[in-house]
């Protein structure tokens, strides 16, 4: 296959490996070779891959914490403002503002906002949804969600050069290497 076909440009290289173990090995090598913009694709989360690829911990937990705090605070404020401040009403001779009665709602709000943050936060950080990724153009890549273990190295990586990188991948035991092409914008 050759680059520069009309409207197409090289996006990167796709390499397939036989097993998670081989993939792990390969990833360690690629990481040590100093590649930056590359990725591995597996049908299920393979343990140790983060380490092998050198992925840093995500900030998601912190976002969720903020979400939770916002929920708790919001829940309490809502109840205090509506029942004790905006329209204070005498209910069962209870004080206008008594914490015990307000715990459940505050708690549920905490959970709700944390959960929503976790969900949307995850997709946002993953830049998902992304419907047209060049990898999808590869028939082989469709096995990535079934039983295929892949590595993609993108062309815009400073260390990327077609021959060298392809060499490297093959040397790491890739059962197949193919070019990924992308539309020109």
């Amino acid at each position, binding site marked *: 296959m050759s680059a520069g076909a009309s409207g197409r440009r090289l996006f990167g290289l796709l390499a397939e490996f036989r097993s998670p173990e081989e993939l792990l090995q390969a990833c360690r090598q690629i990481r040590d070779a100093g590649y930056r913009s590359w990725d591995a694709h597996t049908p299920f989360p393979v343990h140790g891959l983060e380490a092998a690829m050198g992925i840093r911990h995500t900030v998601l937990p912190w976002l969720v914490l903020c979400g939770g705090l916002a929920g708790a605070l919001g829940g309490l404020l809502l109840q205090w403002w509506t029942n004790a401040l905006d329209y204070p009403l*005498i209910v069962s001779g209870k004080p206008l503002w008594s914490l015990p009665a307000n715990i459940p709602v505050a708690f549920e709000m905490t959970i709700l906002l944390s959960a929503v943050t976790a969900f949307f936060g995850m997709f946002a950080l993953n830049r998902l949804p992304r419907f047209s990724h060049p990898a999808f153009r590869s028939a082989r890549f469709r096995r990535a969600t079934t039983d295929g273990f892949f590595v993609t190295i993108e062309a815009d990586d400073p260390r990327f050069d077609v021959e060298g990188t392809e060499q490297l991948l093959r040397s790491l035991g890739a059962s197949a290497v193919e070019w990924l092409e992308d539309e020109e914008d």
Partner: protein
Amino acid sequence: MSSLSGQGAGKAYWRSLEDLAGSVELRALAEREFPEGVAEEPATSRRDFLKLMGASLALAGATACRRWPVERIVPFAHRPEGYVPGEPVQFATAMDLAGAATGLLVTSYDGRPIKIEGNPLHPSSLGGTDPLAQAALLELYDPDRSTAPLRIARGQQIASSFEDVERFSRELFRQLRERRGEGLRVLSEESSSPSLREMRSRLLRALPAARWHEWEPLTRDAAREGAALAFGRPYRSWLLLDRADVIVCLDADPLMTEPGAVRYARDFARARRAEGGRMNRLYAIEPALSITGASADHRLALSRAAVALVAGRIAAELFLRCGLPLPGGAEELRHALERFERHPFRPPLVTDIVRDLLAARGRAVVLAGPGQPPAVHALVHLLNAALGNAGRTVAYAPDPDPERESHAESISALARDAGAGRVEALLLLGGNPVFDAPADVDFAGALGRVPHTIHLSLYVNETSRACAWHVPRAHFLESWGDARGHDGTLSVVQPLIEPLYDGRSPIELLAHALDDGVTSGYDIVRRTIAPALGGGDFEKGWRRVLHDGLLEGSAWAAETPSPVRPTWAPALAALAEADPSAGPGRVELVFARDLSVYDGRFANNGWLQELPDPITRVTWDNPALVSPSTAAELGVGTGDLVRIRAAAREAEVAVFVLPGLPAGTMTVSPGYGRRAAGRVGDGVGFDVYPLRVGRALWRAEAEVVPTGRRWPIASVQDHHLIDVLGMKERGRRAVRLIREGTLADFLDHPGFAKQARGHEGELPQLYRPWSYEGHKWGMTVDLSACIGCGSCTIACQAENNIPIVGKREVARGREMHWIRVDRYFSGTADSPEVRFQPMTCHHCENAPCEQVCPVGATLHDHEGLNVMVYNRCIGTRYCSNNCPYKVRRFNWFDNHRGLGPVEKMVFNPEVSVRSRGVMEKCTFCTQRIEAARAEAKKQGRPLRDGDVEPACAQACPTEAIVFGDLNDPGSRVRRLQDHPRAYGVLEEIGTRPRLKYLARLRNPAGSESGRA
């Protein structure tokens, strides 16, 4: 807000209606408000009125894009002087029931009477009312009332007109006059109206050969005859219970069913509060379980026949043993009394009664009820005379109508003559003899033999259908009239509204028939009362009578007749044969007055039909009551249909097992099983009139056979057959819920009621209780005073637009009454003790209902009312589940659907009409609080104690319910809540109720400290 369409429809519509009503009705009203004005009836006819209403109805239907129907404002063309639209006004009038009137004040709102209350000035009321008076309002607006004269031939009803009626009657009477009235008969109900008596004498003067009959199914003739026997001529007697320390009721029910009962109840209750350590003592010996019996200190259940034994026994003890002087030449009487002494049956209580009677000479009273034979009444009169009670605790006045024959004789004579073809024309002024005449009088058949029959009646009832002419009768709230109270006090019956349907009052009908010049009721009444008003400015006196609702000092002059030689002794002696125990299979059938439908005339009144019987708590029915033992003997239980055979006639009735009835008796109340009562009353309950014969109207020997079939009975308590476990618990709780002690207990430890409670003093509070500055509304109910009559329930229903739900819904536990009177039994099944407890919203300061409402539809306001905001309610019913008193009511359906324009006129515009799906409950009549507040502001003064009186408290005959401001140290309610007898129901669960009860006191013989 979308609820509006639902909630609005009812009220939105008739808010415009009320203006309409005003526009036309008020002209009439205004004249009555200022009677010196012209006296003619207003020109505008009802038809335009209805036309207009129709119009506005149509418009109301046409809803534009707005959220609720377009409303019309229909102002007066000519607004009466000083009349302010939308401001309620009160007028005095009176309601005559079977010859005794109760003075009333009727609240009118834009020309619509919307609430009936007792007239505080009237001696028969003193402000209180019985349920019947309260419910008369609904009768006024009953759409089933007849709307036009009818010509009836062979069952065909042909619409007619008053012109026809008058043409016919004028012609008829012309012919009659030629024959001096030969063949004319008039049958009227018992009435106290002087005008009617006046018209009667005019008729008899004009047509001397005519004859006047009188029939009252629940007649009190026995008492009248008894007096005649005792004193040689008939006397009316009435009680002065406030002066009686000892009351002995022989099958009598002075607190509920005697004329003047409302007044009696008040006098009685005043002496039940143990003020100054004094309390009266009530003995009741009775076959049925009456209201009086329920409040008695000692009650003895005996068959109606056996009551005479007790009477005789008491007399024997007093006259033969205790040396009470027998009237001269009473040897026969002595012999009669000796026979009572010899009778094997030894009734209990007699020694106590005798001792008390002797100790309280002149301060005691012995009473016999309408069900007792004349001889017993005579004996009772004799006793009262001998004990010096006559004139002190019981007053006598000559009967205003001395020469009339007894009702039973009268109607059978009429039937006889008619049957023999001696009657040409019969004019029936009200009544329903075809339904309620004695079974041995074939009245329907007799009617058939009379060529000309005219029936004046509110409804086209059984009798109307058997007559040739039916003439709609004007309701007493629609027509002029007059009446006398139980003590003879004269009142003018003043109309509150134009006749909704054309109608005539009896006096007007007679006037037209006789066509003497004066034909308007208004003039007739003025003519009758003129002499009574005496000299001076007639108009002034007349205005005063209208304003006060009575003529000052017009009561009968009481005298103390002296007994004549007791020729009736043999009759009495005959009673000594009675055998208190009936044979197997046979029972003594006891006829008792039904507290809802009276003799059947109120059968079409939904309020009364749904008002639970105080004792059985049964609605929409008149089951035959038997004691558990008798039920077992007959092999029947509650809800079983039995066939009763008496006097060769049969009736099928459902059985209801009730403790406290004498073995071998079965109590039935006539008036149900109507066939032509109206949509409400038809086919409700069982007709037992067929079991009643003229010579023995009140008791019969009957044979009872189970049919094996069942009948659903809708009782508001014990909705279902209750198991042993539940019954045990109910008994245990009753004594804690309704605390009770003897007078002696109270005098020894006044706080006995509080000590009965688990916790002593204030419960600890988790939160600092809310402090209520300003007003702090509260209520007390004195269980010592409450006799369980149920007036509060109906008064509340009328005041607060409470719907009627019908038998089926009641059976499902969905009745809507805001205030109910719980009834508990304690003690044994043979001689149970009955306890009543009016139960309504307690307005708890820590209201359990409030905190659970998700939308805050029920809350406290700053005066401590537990307010229910219907328009916010979404109907989760959580509040009701969480209410320990179960006083909240839920609108399971749209209970006002399908109400006609006239039916809707009964609504109180000051109270929202609740839509489907919302909770409702007692508001302490917050609308009355607001009204009083506005009035006080207008007068620039603070609210005073007594300014605010909820409907229940106002109607209560015994002043058991007291309402007021707990922050006002001088208020009655404050004093009562601090009273040693005060306690709160379920206080121990921390609700802090604003409604407190005063423990019930009883004064049984033996607690001698009771008599100071």
